[in-house]
């Protein structure tokens, strides 16, 4: 009688303490109820599992790997993401083609005209985009006094005489491909959005 009593007690306490390590904290992501429903079978670019034995204990796979392993073994570095095939052209909403000018072809770029029509809404969007992508270095007012810009050094004062009269195509090209100490931002900002930033810079920051 006494023995069964204490067995119950210990089982109860054991279950409680066993459960106490299920939650996540710090380095430990914790446990899941139904891991098969949590992990993607399809190749996911941002949550790929690189460990081949992950989920081996419930694996039903024919290749003998763990159930949750979902990295593409045929890609470089086993990444699920791949760069597009060379010379392919992405389709875009407005039918615009990729920007083909090289970084040094600044003079050819300067003649390009802004394809985005100037409306108050575009200007407002341009302001938001300018704040997100430019103000860190060029400052909210464009005077080259952003907080990161102070550390990098050599940030253009967009209101300075050397920059204030630059054509829109020039500004677009510099954002896209970089110039001097500024890096290329073409991979970060879609073309249409860069043209919106150009509108904002020309209409508001460089207003004369």
């Amino acid at each position, binding site marked *: 009688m006494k023995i069964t009593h204490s067995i119950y007690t210990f089982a109860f306490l054991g279950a409680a303490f066993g459960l106490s390590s299920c*939650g996540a904290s*710090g380095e430990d992501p914790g446990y899941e109820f139904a891991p098969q429903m949590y992990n993607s079978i399809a190749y996911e670019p941002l949550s790929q599992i690189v460990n081949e034995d992950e989920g081996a204990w419930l694996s039903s796979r024919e290749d003998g790997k763990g159930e949750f392993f979902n990295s593409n073994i045929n890609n470089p570095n086993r990444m699920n993401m791949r760069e597009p095939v060379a010379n392919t052209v992405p389709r875009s909403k407005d039918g615009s083609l990729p920007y083909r000018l090289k970084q040094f072809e600044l003079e050819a770029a300067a003649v390009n005209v802004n394809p985005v029509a100037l409306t108050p809404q575009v200007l407002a969007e341009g302001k938001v985009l300018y704040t997100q992508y430019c103000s*860190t270095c060029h400052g909210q007012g464009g005077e080259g006094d952003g907080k990161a810009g102070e550390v990098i050094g050599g940030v253009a004062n967009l209101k300075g005489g050397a920059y204030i009269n630059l054509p829109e195509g020039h500004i677009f090209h510099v954002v896209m491909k970089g110039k001097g*100490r500024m890096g290329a931002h073409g991979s970060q900002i879609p073309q249409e959005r860069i043209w919106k930033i150009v509108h904002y810079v020309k209409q508001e920051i460089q207003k004369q």
Partner: protein
Amino acid sequence: MSINRSLLSVPLRFSILMMLIFQLSGTQVYAVNPDVPNSEEAIAAGKTVFNANCRTCHRLDSKNVGPALRGVTDRHSIEWNKKFIRNSQALIASGDAEAVAIAAQFNNLVMPAHEFLSDTDLLNLLSYIEYGDKVDPAAAAAAVDGASAGTSAGSGIPSEYLTIILGVLVVVLLLILIVLGLIISILTKYLGNQKLDAVDEEFINQKFDFKKLLKSDGFVIIITTIVIAFTVKTALDEILTIGVQQGYGPKQPIAFSHQLHAGQYEVECQYCHTGVEIGKSANIPSANICMNCHTHIQNVGGKEGISPEIAKIYAAVDNNQPIEWVRIHNLPDLSYFNHAQHVAVGGIECQTCHGPIQEMEVVYQHSSLTMGWCIDCHRQTDINSKGNEYYDKLVQLHSNSKEALKVKDIGGLECAKCHY
């Protein structure tokens, strides 16, 4: 004789003293070209030109992106300076030896042309460069000392006071305990010597029976209830945290600090997480985005050399290797979530779900990301229909209702919105 000597020695000693002062203060001794105007108006006008066109690359007394400028009229002629400022590239291309040497010293970094500056502008600029904003090193050092002394004081006093008060309280309580103990023992001794009746005798000589208390029914019931209640509560709490990764903050391959980037340097979230307004995922930036700044910033806190953490970015770029960041927000595959819908359409701040990211040295999962958490927000949040034609008819249909149009009213609680 003695008069002669003293007369001679006065200017001599004075010049030595001046030399000493110059050397002590660290100021370089150079001869400013006398043609540079030294009037207050010229210096003030030159400062305006400098701030608008030169400030981001040049300092007066220290090397920045470009060389330190003070003394430039001593090193080169005024005409040469004007030509270089107006169009340095043309001067270098013409083969001017001085210009080519400077360009080589600065890795042929291109200085933009300033053809728009007039002769007067340039002279004013040169007078500001030579005479403006001279820094007295002793005063600067004193200011720095003063500032650091000022910041060290201030905080910390209240918590110290609290500790002292607590300590005093504990000591007082201990003293009271000791005094009480002494009183009891004295009284017991005194009563032991007196003649007392049986009841009092028993009361004084009673012993605390621990075993009897342990075996009493009341005690067992109380303890058992407490233990069972505690265990059940712990078990239930823990069952509810299975699959909830709130607080998960793993070590990342590069010790990237959001506190430094998003907090101190105010880099907007979208600068790196470029997908957040146009796609399902916010995206982890690729190394080329890091390199926009880190081509130039190679260490933290203005230290020399390359920081070991930043060196990891360079290694990844050089070897074309991905950086294997550890994913923190693991939304189960059974539910769909789209950042663009929430951030671009809904206009929700990043911090609403991700917490004070700009203060996190190591990022952790701030919200629970449970279904209850999602639903709760969908029940309370108003639709952001301003300037969005998509919602026009819904807003019209809803206009008779007393309550505002919430996310739940347009299908925010439908199962298939997220689970399909």
